[in-house]
């Protein structure tokens, strides 16, 4: 669910916001503010807090990307951007 983000509270280290629509999907990981989406055609990942250009990742379905994020978080008990990027590439 995407809404404005007042007073962000991290309950369990990270949380993952997922939206499907507009012929595309996006996965937002808070509070790191990492976004993975396939808007504008090819899937890509935005670095935390949009610091840097989006990086293209391998083409996968939304379910596959979501599972990679879930597995990553469960294994690391957090979301580590650099490692997640490698897993998605």
């Amino acid at each position, binding site marked *: 669910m995407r809404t404005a983000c007042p007073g962000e509270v991290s309950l369990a280290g990270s*949380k993952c916001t997922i939206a499907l629509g507009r012929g595309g999907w*996006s996965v937002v990981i808070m509070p790191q503010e990492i976004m993975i989406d396939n808007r504008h055609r090819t899937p890509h990942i935005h670095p935390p807090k949009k610091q840097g250009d989006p990086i293209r990742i391998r083409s996968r379905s939304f379910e596959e990307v979501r599972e990679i994020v879930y597995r990553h978080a469960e294994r690391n008990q957090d979301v580590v951007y650099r490692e997640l990027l490698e897993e998605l590439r």
Partner: protein
Amino acid sequence: MIIRFEQSLMVSEFLKEVKRRYGSEKELRRLSERKPKDILAAEDLEDFEYYSKHPELQSEQIRRAVSVIPVNDRGLSIFSPERLKLLDVLSSKQFESIRQLARFLKRDVHNVYEDLKRFQALRVLELERGPGNSRIPRLLAQYIAIVPTHWEKLEPFKEG
């Protein structure tokens, strides 16, 4: 295990929700300009602009979900009996203020407010502006899913 709060809404409902949450498109635009790194507001704005220009998509369905990852003790603490009761009550009754909700639940208004803020941060509900300084709690999530994950081979439990 994954805890997932899910919501499914039509584009027309999404547009109403954005207006309700931010006040107006102008306010959303202002927030997005003031906080350019707020990716959620930026996304809302992008979607709002897109769907406003495409009225033929008004009946398209948008699926949204918030997952709590990883599920640890803190994550599980959202399911205290008081918090589950709060969600249950909000799914069947409308309140004009947090104070009214707290009175109904026979709980301290501050504690109820803290729980609502927690759920608001998880996008499970929103606190709409009411008359004066009041906030109207409104449940957004339609489903709460607890998804067991069987990705890895089960390890035998070893004590100690």
